[in-house]
C-alpha cells in the first residue's frame, strides 16, 4: 500500500511517501525550488516522492493533505465575527489563501497530476493529528503520551494525546488565539527577527540576556495555569486581526518600538529573548507534566513547530517527567506531510504497525542522493578538478578537518527537517577558538552571536556533554561537561564591549569552543554507525587523528538560502563562500584548484535575508 502525504499553503511545504507504514521518501519543496520556506503546493517534492517509490499518482492507494480546509474556514469566519467591525484587514489578507488556494487543494493537485490515487479522492487530515502522527508513529514506542505545540492548525494550537499501537487519540487541547507558537513568534518579530525562520535565532540570543521581563510577561501577557494551559491577553497582540504580531501597548511594556531587522541588537532584545525563553520553557515543561498525568505514559512524543525549541526540549529531559522522549526531526509543518500519510495508513487502512526499537525515521535521511556516476559526470562535464578517494574518502577528509579546513559535505540521502545531520553539512574542527567567528562571517555570512552545533560519536557523548540520552536529531540542548568548561564572565564581557557580541563569541569557553554557547550549552547531534555509517566513520577517523570525537556541524547553505540539495547547489555554495573543501560522496574538491567561478548575478541579492 502506497500513500502520499502533502503539506502546503502555510510554510515549509513538503511531500512524503510511505509503503505499508515504512517511509520511502520525504522532502521539503524549498530544497528543489530554492525558495526558503516555500509554501506553495510542493509539486517538485511530490514528483521526487513518486519517483522514489516508482509509482504514478494514480497508482497510489491514497493521497492525503495535512490540514482540514473546512475547519480552517470555520476559524477564519468566526475570527472575523469575533472582531466585528475590526475584521476588515483579516478578511482581505485571508481571502485569497482561503478561496483561491486552501479550498481548491484537491483540484489543484488534479490539474497537475491527474487522478489522485486509485479512488481519485483527496483525504484531508486534521493539522494537529498530522503532527501527532509524525511524532508517534516513527517513534520507538509501542505507547506514549503525545504533545504537539505550534502556531495554529485549524483551531488547535496545543494538543495532548495518547498513542498506542496503531491508534492515536487527542485528549485535551488549547485553541486559537491562545498559542505558544504565535506568542513566541510575536517576541521573535518584536526583536527584529523574521517569523518562521528567525525563531531559532531568537532562541540562540537568549543566553546573552537576563529574564528581567519574566514577571511582566506573566502578569500582563500570559495567564499560565499550573496544568500548563494558558490564556493570552489579546490587548497586547495584533496577530489575530492584522499582519502585525504586536501593537503599541506591547511596545510600551518593553520600553519602546520593535527592533528593525538588521539593526544593532541591544541589551533589551537579549533580555526579552531570555525572558520569553524562560516563560516558554515553563509552559512546555508544565504541558509535558500534565500530559504524563492524564495519560500515565512513561514515553513522550513531540511535534509541532515549538518542538524545534531544543532548549525547552532539554528542560523536559532534565525534569525527568518521562523515561524516554522522541521528537519528530521535521517537527514543523513539513513533518505534517509524513504524519498525515502515516495516520491514513494505520487508522484508515488498517496497516499493522511494526515498532522499531531504534525508531523508524531512518536517521531522517529521506531525500535524494546522487550516485557516484552522476557526480562524476557533473564534475567532468564542467571541468571541475577533483580527487577521487573511493572508500578512503573519510580518512582524507578527516585529515583536512584536522588541518582546520572548512568543508562542505554533500553525501548520501538528504535530511528531512530543518537540521543538517551530516549529509548536507558544513563541517569543521571544533577545537579552534577562531572557528565560530570564521564560519559566521566567511561562510554563513550571518549574525555573529549564533552558535554552531556539534556532531559527536554516540558512544562518546557522555565524555563531552552532560546529557542523559542520545540526541540523534539535534533536538536537545544540554551543557558541555563541566570539566571541559573554561571560566568566562559573560556579564563583564558584555559590559566591556557595550553589548557587542562579536568579541564574546571569540572568547574561549571550553576545549571545544566552536560548539559551546556562551552559557556552555550545545545543541547536540549524536551519531551512531547504524543511522549514518559514513558520517560516523568520518568522525571516527577525525578522533583517531586528534583524540577529539566531536566536529562542528552547520547546515550547508548561506544565509537566506535553503540547505543545498544537489551537487550543483553544493558546488555553487562552495564557490560563493570562503569554504576550503567540498566533499561530494567519494570526491574531494579543493578551492585553490577550481576554475574561476562565473557568477552571473550578485548572488547575495538572490536570497531574501531570513
Amino acid at each position: 500500500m502506497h500513500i502520499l502525504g502533502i503539506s502546503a499553503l502555510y510554510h515549509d511545504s513538503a511531500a512524503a511517501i510511505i509503503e505499508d507504514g515504512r517511509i520511502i521518501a520525504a522532502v521539503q519543496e524549498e530544497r528543489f525550488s530554492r525558495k526558503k520556506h516555500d509554501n506553495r503546493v510542493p509539486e517538485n517534492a511530490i514528483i521526487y516522492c513518486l519517483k522514489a517509490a516508482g509509482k504514478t499518482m494514480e497508482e497510489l492507494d491514497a493521497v492525503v493533505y495535512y490540514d482540514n480546509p473546512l475547519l480552517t474556514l470555520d476559524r477564519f469566519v468566526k475570527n472575523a465575527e469575533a472582531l466585528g467591525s475590526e475584521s476588515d484587514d483579516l478578511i482581505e489578507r485571508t481571502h485569497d489563501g482561503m478561496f483561491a488556494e486552501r479550498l481548491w487543494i484537491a483540484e489543484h493537485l488534479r490539474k497537475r497530476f491527474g487522478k489522485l490515487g486509485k479512488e481519485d479522492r483527496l483525504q484531508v487530515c486534521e493539522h494537529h493529528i498530522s503532527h501527532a502522527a509524525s511524532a508517534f508513529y516513527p517513534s520507538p514506542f509501542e505507547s506514549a503520551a503525545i504533545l504537539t505545540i505550534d502556531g495554529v492548525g485549524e483551531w488547535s494550537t496545543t494538543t495532548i494525546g495518547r498513542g498506542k499501537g496503531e491508534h492515536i487519540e487527542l485528549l485535551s487541547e488549547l485553541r486559537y488565539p491562545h498559542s505558544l507558537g504565535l506568542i513566541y513568534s510575536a517576541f521573535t518579530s518584536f526583536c527584529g527577527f523574521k517569523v518562521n525562520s528567525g525563531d531559532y535565532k531568537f532562541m540562540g540570543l537568549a543566553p546573552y540576556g537576563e529574564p528581567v521581563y519574566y514577571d511582566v510577561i506573566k502578569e500582563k501577557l500570559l495567564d499560565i495555569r499550573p496544568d500548563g494551559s494558558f490564556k493570552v491577553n489579546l490587548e497586547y497582540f495584533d496577530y489575530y486581526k492584522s499582519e502585525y504580531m504586536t501593537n503599541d501597548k506591547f511596545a510600551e511594556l518593553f520600553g519602546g518600538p520593535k527592533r528593525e531587522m538588521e539593526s544593532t541588537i541591544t541589551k533589551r532584545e537579549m533580555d526579552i529573548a531570555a525572558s520569553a525563553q524562560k516563560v516558554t520553557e515553563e509552559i512546555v515543561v508544565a504541558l509535558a507534566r500534565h500530559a504524563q498525568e492524564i495519560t500515565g505514559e512513561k514515553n513522550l512524543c513531540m511535534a509541532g513547530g515549538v518542538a524545534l525549541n531544543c532548549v525547552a526540549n532539554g528542560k523536559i529531559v532534565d525534569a525527568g517527567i518521562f523515561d524516554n522522549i522522541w521528537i519528530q526531526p521535521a517537527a514543523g509543518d513539513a513533518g505534517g506531510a509524513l504524519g498525515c500519510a502515516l495516520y491514513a495508513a494505520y487508522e484508515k487502512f488498517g496497516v499493522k504497525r511494526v515498532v522499531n526499537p531504534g525508531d523508524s525515521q531512518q536517521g531522517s535521511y529521506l531525500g535524494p542522493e546522487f550516485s557516484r556516476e552522476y557526480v562524476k559526470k557533473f564534475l567532468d562535464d564542467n571541468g571541475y578538478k577533483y580527487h577521487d578517494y573511493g572508500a578512503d574518502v573519510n580518512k582524507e577528509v578527516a585529515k583536512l578537518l584536522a588541518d582546520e579546513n572548512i568543508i562542505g559535505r554533500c553525501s548520501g540521502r538528504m535530511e528531512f527537517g530543518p537540521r543538517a545531520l551530516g549529509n548536507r553539512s558544513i563541517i569543521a574542527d571544533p577545537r579552534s577558538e577562531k572557528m565560530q567567528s570564521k564560519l559566521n562571517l566567511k561562510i554563513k555570512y550571518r549574525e555573529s552571536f549564533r552558535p554552531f552545533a556539534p556532531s559527536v560519536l554516540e558512544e562518546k557523548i557522555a565524555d563531552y556533554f552532560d546529557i542523559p540520552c542520545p540526541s540523534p536529531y539535534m533536538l536537545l540542548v544540554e551543557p558541555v561537561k563541566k570539566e571541559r568548561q573554561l571560566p568566562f564572565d559573560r556579564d563583564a564581557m558584555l559590559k566591556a564591549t557595550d553589548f557587542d557580541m562579536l568579541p564574546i563569541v571569540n572568547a574561549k569557553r571550553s576545549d571545544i569552543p566552536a560548539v559551546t554557547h556562551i552559557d556552555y550549552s550545545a545543541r547536540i547531534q549524536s551519531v551512531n554507525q547504524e543511522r549514518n555509517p559514513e558520517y560516523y566513520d568520518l568522525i571516527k577517523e577525525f578522533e583517531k587523528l586528534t583524540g577529539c570525537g566531536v566536529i562542528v556541524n552547520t547546515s550547508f547553505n548561506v544565509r537566506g538560502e535553503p540547505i543545498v540539495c544537489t551537487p550543483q547547489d553544493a558546488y555553487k555554495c562552495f564557490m560563493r563562500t570562503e569554504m576550503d573543501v567540498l566533499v561530494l560522496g567519494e570526491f574531494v574538491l579543493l578551492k585553490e584548484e577550481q576554475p574561476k567561478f562565473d557568477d552571473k548575478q550578485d548572488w547575495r541579492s538572490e536570497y531574501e535575508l531570513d
Partner: protein
Amino acid sequence: MSLISKLFGGKAAGKQTDAEDTAVKNQSQAVADTEDAGCTTTEESAKLYAFAKANASKENTEKIFAKAQADSYYVDSEKVKVFPERIMDFGFDNPAELEAYLLELWKDDKKMQELIPVIKVATFKNRDKYDSKYKDLSLYNYTL
C-alpha cells in the same frame, strides 16, 4: 485604512439593507478592478465583513476568544470535534458539493449557514486565480 473600510466609509454597525447591498456590490466591483497588491476586496469579502459587523457582540467575542479567566484553559478534544473522523474525503466540482460540506460543518449553526451562499460564490470565482503561480512545473529533473 483597509479597502473594506473605505467601502463602508467608517465603522457603521448593523445589517445591510438591499440598497446598501447594491451599493456595496457596485463599489466593490470598482475597487476590485483596481490593482491593490496583497489585498483582495470583492463583493464577497464585503459581505463577509457585513456579516462580521452585524454579528459582533461582546458575548460572541468572549466565546470565541475565551477571555474569561478559568482554573484551566484546556478543552476536551472529543467535545470540540466537528466531523466524525479526523481524516475525511475533501474535494468538490460544483457549488452544490461545496454546500454539502459546509452544511455538515455548520449543521448546528443556523447563523453560520447564512454565509454559505457568499462562500460558494467567493470560492468558485477564485477557482483558477492562482494557476499562474505554478506555471514552472517540473523543475526537478534529477536522476535518482
